[in-house]
């Protein structure tokens, strides 16, 4: 599964906002910038990046693995295996996450990693609410 993003993606960066584009971590200057991504390459804003040390709950680990799939397609099979191991545990612990998980999986299947991450963010919020109820 080759990674791809929407070609001609317009990105607006706020002053001093950081963004990861392919292998480059880029900081914006002091004014708002507009960029257009002309070719297919992974892209994620700093605020959407989850560091490994912050992947401390089941759903955050799922989010992290999706980032791995997105930015490290060479090792896709390993990342898939890890994804399903994590998902199995998660769904067993919390069956009500099944819908969100399936939606995320569908996006991954279609190489829409950016969209998969957006839904995975909802999964994290859902997990937060479940945990707060205990």
């Amino acid at each position: 599964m080759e990674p791809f993003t929407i070609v001609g993606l317009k990105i607006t960066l706020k002053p001093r906002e950081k963004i990861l584009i392919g292998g480059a971590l880029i900081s914006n200057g002091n004014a708002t910038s507009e960029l257009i991504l002309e070719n297919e390459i992974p892209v994620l804003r700093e605020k959407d990046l989850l560091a490994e040390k912050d992947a401390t709950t089941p759903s955050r680990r799922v989010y992290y693995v999706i980032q791995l799939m997105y930015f490290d397609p060479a090792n896709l099979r390993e990342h898939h295996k890890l994804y399903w191991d994590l998902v199995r545990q998660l769904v067993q612990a919390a069956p009500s996450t099944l819908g969100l998980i399936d939606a995320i999986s569908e996006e991954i299947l279609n190489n829409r990693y950016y969209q998969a991450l957006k839904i995975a963010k909802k999964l994290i919020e859902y997990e937060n609410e479940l945990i707060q109820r205990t």
Partner: protein
Amino acid sequence: MSDISLSAGIRANLLSLQNTSSLLSRTQERLGSGKKVNSAIDNPTNYFTAQSLTNRANDLTARLDGITKGIQTIKAADNGIKGITTFISQLKGIANDALGTTSTTDRQTLASRYNEVVNQITQLAEDSGYDGINLLNSGSLVIQFAEKAGDATLGITGFSGQATAGDLNIATVGAGFTADGAASANITALEAAEVVLRNKSRELSTNLSILTTRESFTKNMVNTLKSGADKLTLADLNEEGANLLALNTQSQLAVQSLSLASQAASSVLRIIG
């Protein structure tokens, strides 16, 4: 109305039940009213009902069939290519033998053997199909990946593996490999054909890899749905929160796996720590 006194334990349970039922009724009310839900806890019910779960599993299984068929088609073509490659080796051998003898009779024998093998190549190419699609007979395949038709697809174009008429350009020889030049020219043509086949084989191998990755992923999706479906109706949200916390503390293995995966990953992710 007389007062009812409850023990602390019973009161706690009662409050817990009241909380749960008030949450449920709030959820149902929100769903019923069609208002936008603010709490993430309301969203999952929008994704699934028991009914659409079955439809979903069926849809995925149908797509899985398409992918599996694609895999079989590629494997059939790949076997054909392997066979043709062997035949080409034989042809080179025969042509070299022809170069090594001046006897006209020998050369005639070799020529007819040569032409037999050339025909076998065409035969094999024509027999390398699966379920009506033959990638060695200019057949092609489009595999639907996504839910909506026209979204992510994989197209696999075949080529023509017939010896003479096709992309391999392997001609039959005249009556007796009459001149040395003819045999040499044939060997050159055969080597060119080998290159064509190697490239096609590599292409097919890449496609096969894509398909097997997808097959595996889709199978996991189906299995997750099937095993999760039963538990969905019994979902106890209070219990789930506790389970998730327990998962956190038991998660040494998960943390290690994640760490290993990150190390294996390209350096770009080290940037994000």
